[in-house]
Every structure is written in C-alpha cells, then in structure tokens.
C-alpha cells in the first residue's frame, strides 16, 4: 500500500538522473547570481550618489558653463602662480640658511650684549645725584636754569 505521494514520486524516480544534472546547473547559476549581486549593489549605490550629484551640476553649473570655465581657468592660473612663487621662496630660503654653530655664536653674542645692558659692571661711573636748584634766586631765573639743564 502506498500513499499518493509515494506513488507519484516512485513513478518519476527515473527522472532523477536528469534532475541531478539540472540541479547542478542551477547551483552554478545561483553561485553566479550571488557573485554578481554584490558589485551590482555597489554599482547601484554609486549610481545613486552620481544621480544626486548630477542635480546641482545640471541646475547650477551647466547653464553658466562659460562663466564657470573662465573662473576655473583663473583659479588654475592663480594656483600655478602660487606654486611657482612658493618654489622660488623656498629656493631663496634654502640659499640663505646658516649653519647651527653660527646661529649659536650669534645667540651667545646677543645674550652677552643683553647681560651688559641689564647688569652694568662696577667700573662704570655712578649715577650723578640730581642737581639741586638753589633757592636763593628769583623764581624767573630758576625756570631758565631748569630749562637749560
């Protein structure tokens, strides 16, 4: 005694060899589909980004393309000018460089001069006391002597 299922499957058992071949081919297709699906997803994402970026390009840049081209040319000229100028400046700076020993000597000299200014030596003459203006003169003469001093 068989169930209808058992009977139906038994009747088509002979087709199993052909079905196995079909299965193997379908598995290859499935693997191929899976291998392709990842780049397709990436491509779709990239296409979406490009589509979004295309909107401002179409609306803003393309209608005034001559103006934008002119501006771009000016920017390129400025950039080239800046680059060449910077190269020349670097050359000059490279030429005028001094050795570290010279710098150290100059620094020491500067320190020495500064020390002399800030801390005068004992051999220097003492500061003169402020001159006292005699009080026994008339007031008008006192002012003249003050101005002369």
């Amino acid at each position, binding site marked *: *005694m*068989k*169930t*209808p*299922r*058992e*009977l*139906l*499957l038994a*009747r*088509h*058992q002979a*087709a*199993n060899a*052909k*079905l*196995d071949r*079909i*299965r193997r*081919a*379908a*598995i290859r*297709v*499935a*693997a191929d*589909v*899976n*291998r392709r*699906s990842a780049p397709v997803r990436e491509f779709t994402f990239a296409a979406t980004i490009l589509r979004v970026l295309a909107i401002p390009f179409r609306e803003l840049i393309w209608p005034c393309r001559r103006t934008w081209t002119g501006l771009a040319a000016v920017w390129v000229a400025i950039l080239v000018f800046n680059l060449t100028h910077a190269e020349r400046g670097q050359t000059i700076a490279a030429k005028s460089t001094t050795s570290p020993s010279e710098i150290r000597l100059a620094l020491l000299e500067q320190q020495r001069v500064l020390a002399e200014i800030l801390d005068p030596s004992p051999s220097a003459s003492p500061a003169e006391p402020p001159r006292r203006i005699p009080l026994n003169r008339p007031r008008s003469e006192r002012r003249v002597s003050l101005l002369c001093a």
Partner: protein
Amino acid sequence: MLVVAEREQLPVQEARAGEPEAWDVLFKRYQLPLYAYVFELVRAEQPSLDIVQETFIAAARHLAGLRDDDRFGSWLFGIAHQKCVQHWRKSGREEPLDADFAEALSGSGDDPSELLIREEQEAEFMEALNQLPPPQRAALLLHFVEDFSLEEIAGITGVSLGTVKSRLHYGKKALRELLEERNT
C-alpha cells in the same frame, strides 16, 4: 505513512547568503516532487524538465524577494505553477488551470496519507487522476505531493481559498467515483 516533513528546517537563509551547499540541499529536497507535479500537469517529459530548470533558476535569482523562509516550498511550487501556465499559453492551448469552478460548500480536510492505494490500483489511480480537470488535478497534486495547506495551495495556484476548497472537494469526490467505477 506520510514522509513529508513540511516544517522541516531548510537552509534558506544560507542559500540567500550564497552557499552552494545550501542550494544543493534545497534543490535536492524539491527536485522530484516538483518534477512530479509539473509532469502530471504538462504530461510531457522535456517541457517538464525545462520548467523545473527554469523554476530553479528563477528561485536562485529571486530568493531575496522571499519574505517568509518557511514558505520556500510553496513559493517554489508557485513559480513552477506559473511556468506551467506560461507553457500552455505558449503552446496556444487554453488555460485549463484558470478555469472557473463553482464554489463548494466546504472542502474536506482529509489527510493525504489516509488515502492508501493498493499495488494493483496504482495504474488506475494515476489514470483516474489524469482524467480530472487540470485545476482539480493541480490542487490534488499539491495536496498529495507536499501536503500543502489550503492557504498555500491558494497562493501557489493564485485562486481564492474557497476555490481551493471546492477543487479539492470535487477532485477527491471525482477520484473516488472513478476508482469505484473501475472496481465495479
């Protein structure tokens, strides 16, 4: 005894991730029942093999669209069923699967394993099955081969639940009558 394990764990998720072993398990599980179903509808070997192949390839391409992994079997049979309909359209024949049947009062929810066929009756059973109108035959085959639920059969064949109940009811009735006629 019914051998079908309808709610078995199938590696659908793994197949979706692109594992060839998972595809092998899935296709191996369904290749013969699917072929049996298609053959009993189409009644020709080479077109049946072509339909099974096309079904497998379509499944490999569109598995990402399957929402419920537990429905893989009915989804696969649904693809095959559509291919059968396309086959009839291409060959210029009428679409017997789309024929409209009167709604029955209610279908019998009999277990397909309840119907047991003796060895000497096997040929008669198959002959009787082939004499049924294709819509009833399709519903009965889905019921017999994979023990699909009424809802699943409705989904596969693209008809309402009531129509499926009707087809199963009248299909079984007609099948019993044909077998009884032959035995008397």
